[in-house]
């Protein structure tokens, strides 16, 4: 809503500056988007063109003598519509136009020019408001030398409000005036309308739908179509509405004034003295003002002349009954239509207008009759109208709503303030809310102009905002509770701390991805959850693993020559049944970069080492890895991860064909279920007493078949070694010289301890011999 300061001051006499008022609006009412002069120009004068002759040197220019009151100026003008006897807007030397352009004495093609004759566009008034191509010719007979902005009613400032949808009352100047009156504690004076009507209703109103709550119609004759008065045009422009002609402008003006949309039919084209309001049938068509045929849905509100439709109620009039330059008789409509219906119809047909907006947010039913009379008075004054008979109407609006009851204690209990009854009395009076108070209990009548005030909480808001929230103290809730993170939240933080400690950056990626990529890198064989109406195919379904997004991060960075990507995300796997939390890791390039020293390139084992470090720091047991085939992964560098026998996810190298296609190096990824990590996470690891007796270390180099998994060997050694074998590690894997092609040698380090006594060398030797003998029998392994 754009507020014209001049208009407002007519309703509520006040001397406050627009900037100050804007600041008050922000704090007490609605957010102010802008406070701006309607025309940002200085020094404009009304001039009278005395003579106008062609420029001797240029066909497209005219040389004018212009009377500007105190003197006559010679001005060169390029507008083809300039002519003698016109009253025009003159920017004299020294005048400043929008954009900071200062007008000076110049010489144009040999002719002196002392100023400029202006078009409305040059004043900064958008073309859409006037559609004038040349200079503006002033219609009013104003004395030369007068201030032009004043004469044209452009000496105005506009406050633009960003309205919240509940404040329908602020869609009218009257409503704005009420709020300003409350903010400034000033009386307001709304225009009084007294019409003299007589006789039988000239039009009969019938309604066949409860979606029309009231309908007032008045017939007017001897209408003269012409431009509306300048003050009205200026106010419409200030409000952001384009002036058209007196009939359309008056309906818009009264709508802006009262919030009640009006519609004018050409009464001759209507060709009926009866209006019937009904609901449209599904598939029915109607040609709107813009000459487009609209297909209607059942329930859309139709205004008919008893035979055919003439308007789409609350949304748009019909082409057949449009007011034209030949119109002499009008049917003026002021009605209340169901808010929800108008909202739906206008949205569906994409026909949102100032009218539909007001209906959608609910108009004040008590303003309908007033608006009809106010517009009638303006038609008499500015369109030569004469009233025909009396108005016809139907009115089913009722304002018998129960009053709102609230105590002073409750107001203070909710706001946390210490307001007195005198203060609350004063605020309610400033808001013009009728109330009675018995002791400390208020009974407040509902008012139709504030349809947003329904409950005691709404009243509290009114008291709070008009008093100013800055009046409230700053306190903290007295509710005492123990603040804490849940175990899951703690685990998440520990994972984040561990992985960032290991040099991985955390990322956050989109949950919605393209449908065809959802199953990628996932072992879940389920249809993706799709969004019913995606905005783009790129974000159409919910992910099964954050790896989908992590892979994009790798691609994005590689395209920017950033090949060392070590990232993780704590994300979600979404299925129709549930959302499970996933940890995904992606590593590519180098992990820790050694610069001038030799840097190992990330491989499967780098990622595995990171994951093992994570499990260790979380106090979880070591995981097991089973070779796994998956079409998105390298066939021989991929494994299923198991934790105490439970599969928790996948680790592997992204298929080299895929990474090559995407111009990536080797990419290693991991995706595990965080919930299982949480489940298996011990409350605290039990303390292990420190070993008192010396341990004995033995290294073994054992040759075996190349395909024999190390895990098999390690498990066998553990079984054979028993309790005394406390640690076992692979420190070397060798293939090559001195070995057959299908052989490998494992370098193993075994650590033996006895918690009770110092181990003897021969005991350990015996154990090692036993282990070696077992490996030889079982796997044909031998010492190298």
């Amino acid at each position, binding site marked *: 809503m754009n507020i014209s300061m001049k208009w407002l001051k007519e309703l509520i006499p006040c001397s406050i500056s627009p900037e100050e008022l804007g600041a008050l609006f922000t*704090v007490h009412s609605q957010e102010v988007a802008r406070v701006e002069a309607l025309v940002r120009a200085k020094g404009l004068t009304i001039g009278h063109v005395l003579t106008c002759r062609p420029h001797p040197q240029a066909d497209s220019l005219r040389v004018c003598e212009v009377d500007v009151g105190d003197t006559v100026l010679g001005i060169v003008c390029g507008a083809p519509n300039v002519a003698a006897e016109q009253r025009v807007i003159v920017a004299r030397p020294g005048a400043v136009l929008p954009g900071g352009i200062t007008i000076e004495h110049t010489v144009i093609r040999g002719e002196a020019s002392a100023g400029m004759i202006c078009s409305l566009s040059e004043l900064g008034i958008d073309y859409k408001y006037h559609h004038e191509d040349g200079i503006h010719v002033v219609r009013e007979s104003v004395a030369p030398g007068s201030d032009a902005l004043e004469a044209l009613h452009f000496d105005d400032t506009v406050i633009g409000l960003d309205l919240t949808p509940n404040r329908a009352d602020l869609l009218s100047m009257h409503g704005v005036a009420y709020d300003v009156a409350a903010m400034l504690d000033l009386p307001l004076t709304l225009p009084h309308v007294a019409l003299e009507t007589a006789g039988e209703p000239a039009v009969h109103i019938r309604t066949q739908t409860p979606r029309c709550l009231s309908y007032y119609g008045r017939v007017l004759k001897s209408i003269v179509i012409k431009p509306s008065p300048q003050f009205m045009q200026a106010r419409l422009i200030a409000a952001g509405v384009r002036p058209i002609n007196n009939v359309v402008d008056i309906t818009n003006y009264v709508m802006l004034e009262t919030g009640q949309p009006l519609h004018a039919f050409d009464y001759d084209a209507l060709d009926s003295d009866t209006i019937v309001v009904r609901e449209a049938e599904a598939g029915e068509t109607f040609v709107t003002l813009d000459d487009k045929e609209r297909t209607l849905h059942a329930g859309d509100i139709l205004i008919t002349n008893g035979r055919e439709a003439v308007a789409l109620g609350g949304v748009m009039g019909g082409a057949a009954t449009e007011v034209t330059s030949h119109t002499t008789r009008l049917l003026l409509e002021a009605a209340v239509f169901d808010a929800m219906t108008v909202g739906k119809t206008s949205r569906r047909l994409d026909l949102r207008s100032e009218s539909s907006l007001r209906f959608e947010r609910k108009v004040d039913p008590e303003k309908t009759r007033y608006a009809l009379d106010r517009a009638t008075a303006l038609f008499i004054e500015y369109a030569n109208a004469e009233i025909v008979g009396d108005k016809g109407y139907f009115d089913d609006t009722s304002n018998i709503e129960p009053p709102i009851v609230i105590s002073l204690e409750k107001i203070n209990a909710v706001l946390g303030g210490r307001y007195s009854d005198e203060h609350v009395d004063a605020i309610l009076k400033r808001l013009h809310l009728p109330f009675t108070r018995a002791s400390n209990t208020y009974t407040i009548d509902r008012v139709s102009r504030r349809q947003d005030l329904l409950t005691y909480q709404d009243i509290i808001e009114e008291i709070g905002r008009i008093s100013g929230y800055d009046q409230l103290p700053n*306190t903290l*809730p007295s509710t005492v*509770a123990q603040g804490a993170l849940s175990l899951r939240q703690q685990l998440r933080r520990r994972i984040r701390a561990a992985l960032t400690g290991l040099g991985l950056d955390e990322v956050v990626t989109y*949950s919605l991805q393209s449908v065809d990529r959802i199953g990628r890198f996932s072992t879940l064989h389920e249809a993706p959850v799709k969004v019913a109406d995606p905005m783009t195919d790129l974000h159409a379904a919910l992910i099964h693993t954050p790896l989908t997004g992590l892979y994009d991060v790798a691609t*994005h960075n590689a395209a920017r020559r950033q090949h060392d990507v070590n*990232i993780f995300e704590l994300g979600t796997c979404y299925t129709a049944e549930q959302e499970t939390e996933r940890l995904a890791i992606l590593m590519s390039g180098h992990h820790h970069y050694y610069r001038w020293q030799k840097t190992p390139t990330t491989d499967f084992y780098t990622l595995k080492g990171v994951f093992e470090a994570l499990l260790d720091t979380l106090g979880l047991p070591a995981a097991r890895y089973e070779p796994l085939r998956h079409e998105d992964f390298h066939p021989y560098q991929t494994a299923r991860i198991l934790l105490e026998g439970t599969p928790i996810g996948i680790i592997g190298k992204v298929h080299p064909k895929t990474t090559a296609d995407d111009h990536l190096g080797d990419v290693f990824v991991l995706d595990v279920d965080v919930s299982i990590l949480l489940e298996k996470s011990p409350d605290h690891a039990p303390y292990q007493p420190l070993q008192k007796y010396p341990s004995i270390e033995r290294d073994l180099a054992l040759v075996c078949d190349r395909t024999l998994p190390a895990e098999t060997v390690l498990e066998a050694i553990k079984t054979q070694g028993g309790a005394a074998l406390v640690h076992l590690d692979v420190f070397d894997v060798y293939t090559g010289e001195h070995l057959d092609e299908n052989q490998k040698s494992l370098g193993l380090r075994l650590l033996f301890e006895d918690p009770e006594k110092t181990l003897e060398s021969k005991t350990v030797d015996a154990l090692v011999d036993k282990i070696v003998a077992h490996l030889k029998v079982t796997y044909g392994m031998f010492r190298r």
Partner: protein
Amino acid sequence: MDLKQTLTHLESKLKEALKQTDKLETLQDIKAEYLGKKAELTLLMRHMKDVDAAERPVFGQTINAAKTRFTELIELRREALEAKRLEDRLNAEHIDVTLPGPDFRLGRPHVLNRIVMEIEDLFIGMGYIIKEGPEIESDAYNFEKLNLPKDHPARDMQDSFFITEERLLRTHTSPVQVRTMLEQGGRKPVKIICPGKVYRRDDDDATHSHQFMQIEGLVVDTNTTMADLKGTLLTVARAMFGEHRNIRLRPSYFPFTEPSVEVDVTCFKCNGNGCPMCKHTGYIEILGAGMVNDFVLSASGYDPSIYQGFAFGMGVERIAMLKYGIDDIRHFYTNDIRFLKQFST
């Protein structure tokens, strides 16, 4: 030659030998030669029994003195050689201390999660519990129980991704508030914040994202006031944007709160004096809040004649963008390494 001469001769021979050697290994041989079992000195000692009994003590003392002296000479040389060896080793270990070490950079939590954690910790300190909930929500929890019936125009304000008629991606974390209140059974006080991902139908551009992160807070008790809300938000604003900040509450509208307010913080760039960042208003909008609408309390099992509460909600991206001066919301989701690396832990 008498004993003294012999010993002097031996000593000068030893000195010469020590002088000649520059290896610790040969020093051991020298020690054997002059002090070992077959050394001249040892042999002389064996002659003691041939010496007169009266001269024997002097004879013994002389030889022992020589032995001590020889040992000292060898040890002195050993120390010298050891010092030399150490010095050689150190010389060989000369490095260029100006060369850089390996890049053992720690990773960084994502800036959005970093802000979430910061706010979580602030609220944990004030006795709040961190609650979470599903991102695929029912229409009932996301809208209806929050006073947004099916035809409510305010649903437009957060146009949503529906999956079926009744299920959608949550448009705010408010359903977690509903779930928590229902869990509490309408009797116990509630004091929570709910961080999480939310989704709205916005075209992705520099200031809009179809996915973003929100943190909402809710306190419900018999005596929770708007002044409590104000004090709480002032604490948040100061923790996030500096201790000299102030806040301003402006009337606004949300279906789930009444009164509803937008909350501005005094501009941390110009201290409220007006600058391009705050569009010369001195204030920057950071969140929306209000007193819980009675409808919402009732729908979640709380008797509004006994209980009242406040709620607030803020966009994490917005806070991060303001705090760090980030110019494009898409950076949070593109995860350019150069972006990720900028935010220290």
